[in-house]
């Protein structure tokens, strides 16, 4: 297995080199320094900035320099908008808040969606199934923004007002486990409610498809009960699509939820990238996008490894 992982990593090096080249070209098509300084900046300030960033060097030198930064994980460039902070500091500070929201949200969403999906498949075509599926579609049909705005209003503002104490913060973030419930639970619940409808429908379809397989008839003929068939026989067979679904969301764990972080003012990776792009913070944008691409590639490799763990028919070679 390790040989497989190593080989996959090696195969993906050219891919990553290509991504980085494309990224660097894309960010340089419109001069990032002019973009940041504005068209009325004087030529001298422009030259100083450009030289400080090394943007006046030939492209291949910049390319090799950036690859060096990525390889050593050493991002010493200073953010253009946040004076005195290097990109490395920014990443280090942002990743914690992102994970504090995304990891519990994904775990909760997957768990809730799987349980609802299995119950729904279990009662397929009957009232509980219909109720759950209608709820799922209703939940999906409402915009994420509506959940955020009403969540903040009812779940934080009105609730705190009624109870007379601050249960959930309307926005903001403090690190530390003790503060987690106060700042993170509401965003986690909101993102769970948003995602659970999509996931439930997907997992239910997967489970329903499994119910028509021959091995289910064999298991029933053996005398296995419905619960055992659902949770022992079907669930393990359904793991490939489930793993695929969960792993697709993996990169977003690291990159954070852009909307949630912006609206709840949580200083995570998503908000950092959003701010960097909207404020023309060239060094931050470049590094964050490059990291995101790397995380994505690693996720795809990891997914294939997990496939082999859940399905004996998958061989890594």
């Amino acid at each position, binding site marked *: 297995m390790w040989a497989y992982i190593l080989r996959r990593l090696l195969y993906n090096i050219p891919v990553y080199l290509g991504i980085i080249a494309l990224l660097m070209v894309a960010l340089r098509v419109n001069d990032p320094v002019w973009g940041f300084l504005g068209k009325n900046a004087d030529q001298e300030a422009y030259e100083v900035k450009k030289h400080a960033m090394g943007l006046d060097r030939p492209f291949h030198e910049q390319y090799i320099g950036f690859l060096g930064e990525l390889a050593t994980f050493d991002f010493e460039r200073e953010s253009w908008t946040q004076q005195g902070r290097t990109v490395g500091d920014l990443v280090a500070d942002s990743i914690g808040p992102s994970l504090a929201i995304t990891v519990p949200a994904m775990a909760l969403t997957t768990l809730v969606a799987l349980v609802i999906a299995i119950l729904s498949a279990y009662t397929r075509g009957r009232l509980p199934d219909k109720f759950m599926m209608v709820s799922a579609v209703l939940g999906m049909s409402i915009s994420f923004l509506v959940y955020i705005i009403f969540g903040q209003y009812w779940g934080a503002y009105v609730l705190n007002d009624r109870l007379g104490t601050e249960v959930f913060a309307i926005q903001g973030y403090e690190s530390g486990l003790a503060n987690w419930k106060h700042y993170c639970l509401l965003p986690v619940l909101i993102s769970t409610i948003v995602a659970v409808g999509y996931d439930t429908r997907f997992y239910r379809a997967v489970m329903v498809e499994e119910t028509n397989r*021959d*091995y289910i008839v*064999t298991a029933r*003929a053996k*005398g*296995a*009960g419905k619960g055992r068939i659902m949770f022992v*026989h079907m669930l*393990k067979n359904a793991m490939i699509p489930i793993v695929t679904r969960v792993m697709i969301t993996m990169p977003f764990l690291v990159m954070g939820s852009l909307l949630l972080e912006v609206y709840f003012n949580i200083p995570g990776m998503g908000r950092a990238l959003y701010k960097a792009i909207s404020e023309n913070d060239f060094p931050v944008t470049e590094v964050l996008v490059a990291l995101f691409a790397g995380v994505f590639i690693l996720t795809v490799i990891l997914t294939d490894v997990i496939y082999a763990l859940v399905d004996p*028919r998958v061989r890594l070679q």
Partner: protein
Amino acid sequence: MSERNGGMKRGEVLLEVTDLRTHFRGEEGVAKAVDGVSFKLLSGETLGVVGESGCGKSVTAMSIMQLVPQPPGFIAGGSIRFAGRDLLSMSIDEFRRIRGNEIAMIFQEPMTALNPVYRVGEQIAEAVRLHQGLDREASRARAIEMLDLVKIPSPEKRVDDYPHQMSGGMRQRVMIAMAMSCGPSLLIADEPTTALDVTVQAQILDLIRGLQQETGMSVLLITHDLGVVAEVSDHVAVMYAGKVVEYAAVADLFAQPRHPYTIGLLKSLPDLAAPGERLHTIPGTVPSAFHFPSGCRFRTRCPLASAECAEREPPLDELPDVGGHSVACHHLKEAEAL
């Protein structure tokens, strides 16, 4: 392996199906896949159920095992008595203690019938654990013992194989091992050899027959292959369009078939003694289960069909001259000339 024949001696009635009706609700109406099937299976014997695709033989087997998907399927009537108990009036929890334990079943497609993500040993052991409450170790030992019983070489190694590491014939042996693991008194085999190579077919049939002789269990063999029936059955039920049209001891049936459909089937067999002859065929196709013809369901394809056949359905009556041979036909005399 515990030997258990439902506490019965050989020759007693182990399974009695009476007027079984299994229907399916479809968009076109109700499909009467099984519509008044009756037969008896004696303890220690093999009953072959033959018929074309869609005649209801598999649905009959699935009905006995209560594996018919509901909805759309439902049992519209009849009774199934097994070792003196009425299976259809039992609760599903009661029946689950019989299913896989006293009545076991093997299927047509060994390639897909096993769960692909569990080791074959675990799948055999599951049945034992469910019904006999053995622990992990004891049930694994039983699984190895069963693999040995179905003549899989080096069973202590094969027990840890996954299904995809085995051939079709091996997988069918695993299915049989699973079915035999609790020592059933009735084995239902639904086309167990159809998906296998001819040489493997013979091995599997021999295996089932050998196990039957060892344990004294009864076998309900569903097949469309008359050769298989002739070889292994004691009695035969010929099904057509959801009904049993002829029921007889195997020797009687092959010596003197009485129903025009059975006669047609036997005539359609290729004759090895006279190669090159054009094969006999029964004209037409099986009618749709949504729209069976009135009266006798075979009349649309029968050379002897008369007005009476359209009006009145012939009952499955025992012949006066041959005991235990029942035929559902209005024209028995004319049929003798076919």
